[in-house]
């Protein structure tokens, strides 16, 4: 019986020691994994939330977009608001047709807000179009207003008119929605009559004056507005 007691004690010590050793070793191993970063390395990579990236965001489109953003003050590094026609020619470095074609994929995403001759005043349809498009943001990062003027009148006058039209659209968004950081979301481009005039084909786009005659002159008295679903 004495031997039984001794055997019991030895067995007990062995069982306890074995289980304790196992527990200790497991915890130390996990501590080591934690310390050496093995746990982190094993974690699957998780995507980081970002803006939408549509299929039309081609390298060329993004190049122009990036240049506009940097040159027109959207990246916060410049207080200047918008780009002048001269800037556009320099920053885009492409001809009229290629420039316009860049925006073709936005045909269904955006709309052409039309103005009266020699006027920058928005009509009700134009305002509604801007509001509807603004609210349809989804995952887009930038909202572009690309204003134009027709060839009627002098170059300086049209350049100024184009600028005013861009501002009309921009100010309407500001007045209507009163959102902070609007400056960092909206990019303005105003083109005079010397660059990237639209052909009459653009009358088939989503225009604000659907029931009125659309001519090659009329389609250029406009501001094309659209969210752009590209990451930069």
């Amino acid at each position, binding site marked *: *019986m004495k*031997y*039984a*007691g001794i*055997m*019991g*004690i030895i*067995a*007990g*010590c062995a*069982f*306890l020691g*074995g*289980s*304790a050793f196992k*527990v*200790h070793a497991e*915890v*130390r191993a*996990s*501590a080591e994994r*934690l*310390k050496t970063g093995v*746990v982190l390395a094993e974690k699957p990579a*998780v*995507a*980081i*939330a*970002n*803006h*939408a990236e549509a299929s039309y965001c081609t390298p060329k489109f993004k190049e122009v977009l990036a240049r506009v953003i940097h040159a027109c003050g959207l990246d916060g590094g410049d207080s200047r608001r918008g780009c002048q026609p001269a800037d556009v020619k320099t920053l885009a470095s492409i001809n009229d047709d290629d420039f316009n074609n860049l925006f073709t994929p936005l045909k269904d995403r955006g709309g052409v807000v039309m103005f009266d001759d020699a006027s920058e005043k928005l009509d009700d349809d134009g305002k509604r179009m801007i509001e509807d498009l603004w*609210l349809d*943001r*989804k*995952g887009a990062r930038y909202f572009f207003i690309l204003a134009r003027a027709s060839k009627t009148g002098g170059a300086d006058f049209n350049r100024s008119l184009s600028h005013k039209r861009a501002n009309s659209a921009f100010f309407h968004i500001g007045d209507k929605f009163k959102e902070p950081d609007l400056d960092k979301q909206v990019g303005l481009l105003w083109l005079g009559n010397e660059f990237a005039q639209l052909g009459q084909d653009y009358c088939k786009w989503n225009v604000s004056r659907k029931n009125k005659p659309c001519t090659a002159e009329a389609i250029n008295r406009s501001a094309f507005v659209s969210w752009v*679903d590209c990451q930069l």
Partner: protein
Amino acid sequence: MYSPYAALFRDKYWGGVPISLFAVGAFAFFAAFALYLVVCGPLAPRRATKFFGVVSFSPLLASALMFTISAIELGQFCKTCVGIYAASVLLTIGGIGVLVEGNRKGPVVLSADKPEDRDVHVATGKPEVAIPQGALWFVPIWLVALGIFAITPALLYVSALPNYSNYISDCGKLQKPGVDNPVLLHVKPAGATQPATLFVDPLCPTCKAFHKRLEVEKVFDKLDMTLVLFPLDSECNWMLDKPFHPGSCLVSKAILCADRRAMDVLEWAYDNQDKLLEGAKAAAGLVNVRAMLREKWSHLDACIDAKETKVRLDKMMHYIVDNKLPVSTPQLFLGDTRLCDEDSDIGLAFTLRKLAPNLRQP
């Protein structure tokens, strides 16, 4: 599987000290004691057999308690737990057997240490074996030994634990807190003091489980909560190319529309999550989800379709983009410190105590 009952001192040590460790030590003792009884055979002291028989019930009592908690509180059973329950039942059966066998051997006649006093059994002709009673002072020694066995693995476990304090606040910060952001939902129960921002998907099972954990830990009502909906559903979430939780955008809109009762709709969605997901994945798809919403929250119907609701949900997700958060749910920020995913389960109590000591005060 998460159980607040699975470990002790969860506030003090990350993950707490698993209760099963005490079982490991106790079973080691019982195994050794059983070996002692087997080697002793019929000459095992009566006090030893009685002691073994009586204390062998203790694991069964503990198992019965944990089984009841699992069945009633948790509604599920872990594999290790079931193993321990089975071992406890077997041990108790063995203990009863030892008790019965010990009683069957009749009263002690003489001390086994005095062979000259042994009587001769009439029927067999063999000397009757005298069963020793055993010294009484062995009983407290065995009890102390059982205690030492039970706590030793737990003590070693605690001694080997790394210092988790260095890791729990290392999972990111909320760059743009949304306390004053009108787009986000704000839920502040009476007496809530701890600012927190919670990103959830109403149809995400992990979010549902995490919500329950916060309730079990009794901290949910102490959070001055900014609630951000992050549906992992490509219908409204441009970051995904396929829906992980179809119908989630629709339910998120309903939560937004509920405004002050947002938490009620969220909890309803959690309670009916399986049905909602099943409905969304069926042929009729979102129509099923819409019908369930209409049945329970008919007054939200018009608001769900409103353009303003869609815009608000868009803005909510832009808030997530602005904060450069991982596309995953749930995510909880205590103040501006992100709760690590690894700390949202068994390490939750410890992490809450460290990151927000106010939450752990009664």
